[in-house]
């Protein structure tokens, strides 16, 4: 008994990056503690993913059942309860995704396991588990410890660890057939995806944002191509909307939308205060010809130069990095 249990998460037949990230961290901890890593894969028709997981865990436990085709916490909670009671791991790791947020607290409460959510790291030293979690909009980190228990649970924020690994463990795959009860009161109806053409810049991780400096609507193509290259979304400052070069839904700023991307590439945006008010967090990169443009006061990185010179070259550099 014992070991580290990693709950694998997948969508549309693909394992999420966060699962690989957690497995990587688990492998490191496994090395220092000797705890074996078991991945749990629950779903329907997930065999192919199990194969992949096997390379990264000592063991893969697979529950393949039509009732698990769509995530339903009632069902997942009960299935995982069974597995956990059976395997009695010392540590359960789950991604702090919307699913993890939904499942982990219920599971932990159900099993009375101490749970720390939204962690970015954890360690086991001298048999003692401590975790680092974010608080206060990520401005403060907390090191947390746990009261003594046979088992602990930690949810880890996506992006906390690297996805890449050199491990190739070739763990065993164990299929478990369980009696899976139908959910009692939650019915999955369907999944919907945001309609095409509907842009929500508030949800974008990468924003290529363009300002007055673009000069004309016809020049937008240049930045649209850059955004496409980066897999990002095009946004803009107010003057661009005022000139009807881009629709209002693309506007960042106090009268537009508040965004919190990972990367914000401000091109030809002087960085009026009103614009910056809509910008919360993320790495800000500015390209502007005016070295005194206020955008440079808030940017993490900047290039002082004419966007029409910089952007085409930048596009080539990015292509070469892909």
């Amino acid at each position, binding site marked *: 008994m014992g070991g580290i249990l990693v709950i694998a998460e997948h969508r549309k037949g693909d394992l999420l990056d966060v699962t690989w990230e957690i497995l990587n961290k688990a492998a490191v901890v496994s090395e220092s503690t000797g705890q074996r890593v078991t991945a749990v894969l629950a779903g329907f028709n997930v065999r192919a993913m199990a194969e992949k997981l096997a390379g990264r865990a000592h063991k893969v436990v697979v529950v393949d059942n039509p009732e698990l085709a769509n995530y339903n916490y009632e069902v997942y909670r009960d299935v995982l309860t069974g597995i956990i009671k059976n395997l009695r791991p010392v540590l359960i790791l789950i991604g702090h995704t919307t699913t993890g947020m939904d499942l982990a607290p219920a599971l932990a409460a159900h099993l009375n396991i101490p749970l720390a959510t939204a962690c970015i790291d954890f360690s086991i030293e001298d048999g003692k588990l401590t975790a680092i979690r974010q608080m206060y909009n990520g401005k403060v980190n907390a090191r947390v410890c746990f009261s003594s228990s046979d088992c602990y649970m930690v949810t880890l924020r996506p992006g906390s660890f690297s996805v890449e690994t050199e491990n190739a463990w070739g763990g065993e795959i164990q299929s478990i057939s369980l009696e899976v009860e139908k959910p009692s009161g939650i019915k999955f109806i369907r999944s919907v995806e945001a309609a095409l053409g509907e842009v929500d810049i508030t949800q974008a991780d990468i924003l290529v944002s363009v300002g007055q400096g673009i000069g004309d609507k016809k020049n937008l193509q240049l930045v649209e191509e850059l955004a496409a290259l980066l897999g990002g979304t095009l946004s803009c400052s107010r003057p661009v909307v*005022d000139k009807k070069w881009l629709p209002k839904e693309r506007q960042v700023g106090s009268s537009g939308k508040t965004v919190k991307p990972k990367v914000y590439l401000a091109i030809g945006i002087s960085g*009026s205060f009103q614009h910056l008010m809509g910008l919360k967090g993320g790495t800000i990169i500015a390209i502007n010809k005016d070295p005194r443009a*206020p955008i440079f006061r808030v940017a993490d990185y900047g290039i002082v130069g004419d966007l029409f010179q910089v952007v085409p070259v930048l596009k080539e550099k990015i292509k070469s990095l892909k």
Partner: protein
Amino acid sequence: MVDTRTELIDRYDLTKCFQCAKCTAGCPVSLKSVLNIRRLMREVLLSPDLQGTFHKSEIWDCTTCQTCTLRCPRGLKPHELVINLRSLLVEEGEIPKTAIDALEGVYKHGNPWGRARSKRSEWSTGLNIKNLTEGDTAPLLFFNCCTTAYDPRVQEIGKALVTVLRTAGVDFGCLGNKESCCGSEVRRMGETGLFEMLSEDNLKLFQNSGVNEIVTVSPHCYNTFKNEYPEHSFGIKHYSQLVNSLINEGRLKFSRELNRKITYHDPCYLGKQNKVFDEPRNVINAIPGVTFIEFDRSRERSLCCEGGGGRMFIEASASGQRLAEIRARDAVEMGVDIIATSCPFCLLNLEDAVKTTGNEGKLVVRDILELVVDAL
């Protein structure tokens, strides 16, 4: 709603309106907005459905420039009716999202930008300004204004005023992080309760600071302190008045020439509403080398920049040419190098307009204080 309507009719003397339309005709947004201030006066008087009357997005188009009120031959106050209708929306909670952000920003942090109160005085780091809330004393209080405190462009104006006051040997202090929004825009967005709160808080600060006189950067602060705060005995001055008298008293002398063609944009809150027309012009004309050219539409006929009435925080329902753009184009046509003004909102809107009209490089927008500092 009948009672509210009766109240409005009494409060704004709506029965006296003879529908001459001087208000609509002078309204800077009437050509591009559905907002028809004359009709609004009538609708409130007659409409059985008051809800339908004020639940209109154009109610937020008004810039509260007050032209309607100042020119009303019947002495009525149409712009105050608009503010009151907004306050009904505020009570219902149904106001534009950006207005909510601004008002909550003021409530929580003391400024409409929602910036941290603890950073209010950051703009003056290193300037060693006396803090009148922390034991320093001075006869004059320099009221910063939220825009000066937080907007990087306008911060330069605050710094310029510090330079000017020091050059003239004026002893002054600030309220540091304890200063709160003057409430002018808050009141105009219809948040009467919050305005009262702010005016009480600020007046208490003024009283405890031991000053006799207050100088403001923004005409909006100036106007509300002077005309809207509960009765007080502080002398309220806009900086243009103070700087003008410093020049007249010989305490401020220029050593450099400014060989530029300059026009001046009258802020509504300073000019139209408070008749401070001459002092800013005197200051500009006192600068050696300046060639001063008037806008055709100046003084009482000055064009509003559309920055008042909470419009810095609310997107207008009306599209169409921005008035500040008309200003920028006129200035280019006049062949001036600089549009000078004396209000942070005007400055920001005009600067924006210079860009959006593609006139960057042809002319710049400067605050009078910046011109003064350049010529010291």
